[in-house]
């Protein structure tokens, strides 16, 4: 009975979607904010990557709220999972290939992650992508040798809190100048250089470190939960 009503619901949903499709005009949306931003973003913010300028300069508060959501999800996930019993058996070390591979990959992933974060305003990339790669870099040695405590939860919380505080304090600095919260400051520099676009690379660095440490802590929490074989 439940499956029959579910199939009926899905059929109705499909008919409604087909009806909506007749009326959507994808190429000419009425909101022209994107075209206006494309025309002025290069001079106003100095960033060559317009998506970065939208994420950090034009819609900075969205990024701040998204960091809050991620922080809440990681914190609740950690609370729900609970601690590991002290006398629970640990997994054995992984084989030779995984151990050597993890040792070789760790510095490479660190360099690639930091490169993507720091060049976020010039090429596609930025804080979120680089932060995910940094989280993978710090989690890989934990997979190879489950006994070591590479990710200490207190250090992770400290780093994450400091990065978030940096983001908010840079935003508050603009208010002391009389402008609005999260207005980009500092000199714009020339387009395409590494040190350009004012405070945008510093903001993205804070975002990248915060996201990376949060996700690494969450993965470590999940990995430490006892396996149910």
């Amino acid at each position, binding site marked *: 009975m439940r499956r029959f009503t579910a199939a009926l619901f899905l059929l109705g949903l499909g008919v409604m979607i087909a009806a909506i499709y007749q009326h959507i005009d994808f190429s000419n949306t009425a909101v022209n904010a994107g075209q206006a931003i494309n025309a002025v973003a290069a001079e106003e913010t100095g960033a060559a*990557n317009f*998506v970065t300028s939208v994420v950090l300069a034009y819609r900075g508060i969205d990024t701040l709220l998204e960091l809050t959501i991620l922080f809440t999800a990681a914190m609740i996930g950690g609370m729900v999972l609970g601690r590991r019993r002290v006398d629970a058996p640990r997994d054995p070390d992984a084989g030779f290939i995984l151990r050597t591979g993890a040792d070789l990959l760790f510095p490479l992933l660190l360099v690639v992650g930091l490169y993507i974060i720091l060049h976020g305003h010039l090429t*596609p*990339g*930025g804080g*979120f*992508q680089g932060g*995910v*790669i940094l*989280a*993978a870099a710090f*989690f890989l040695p934990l997979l190879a040798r489950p006994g070591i405590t590479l990710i200490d939860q207190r250090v992770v919380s400290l780093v994450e809190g400091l990065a978030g505080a940096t983001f908010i304090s840079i935003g508050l600095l603009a208010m002391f100048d009389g402008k609005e919260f999260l207005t980009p400051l500092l000199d714009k520099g020339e387009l395409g250089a590494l040190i350009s676009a004012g405070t945008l690379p510093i903001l993205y660095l804070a975002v990248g470190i915060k996201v990376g440490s949060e*996700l690494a802590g969450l*993965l470590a929490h*999940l*990995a430490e*939960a*006892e*396996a*149910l*074989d």
Partner: protein
Amino acid sequence: MEVVVLVVVIVMLLSAVAVLLFKDFLAALAAMSVVSLGLSFLFVVVRAPDVAMTEAAIGAGLSSLLFALALRRLGLWRGQ
């Protein structure tokens, strides 16, 4: 160009159906990674390299890792 997009979309939709039909959860996880990969390709087609990089790093990397760790904890790792 449109033939390539059509082929990728068909593979992606078939994998999405396969995620719900596989009995073994490890196979469903692999099909989910294929969906993320196809999605990343489609994001490049609509001229969005930033979003494509994010989807590739998160969908095919972090999300699969999260699922694998949770499956091991739940005891569903070794097949039914």
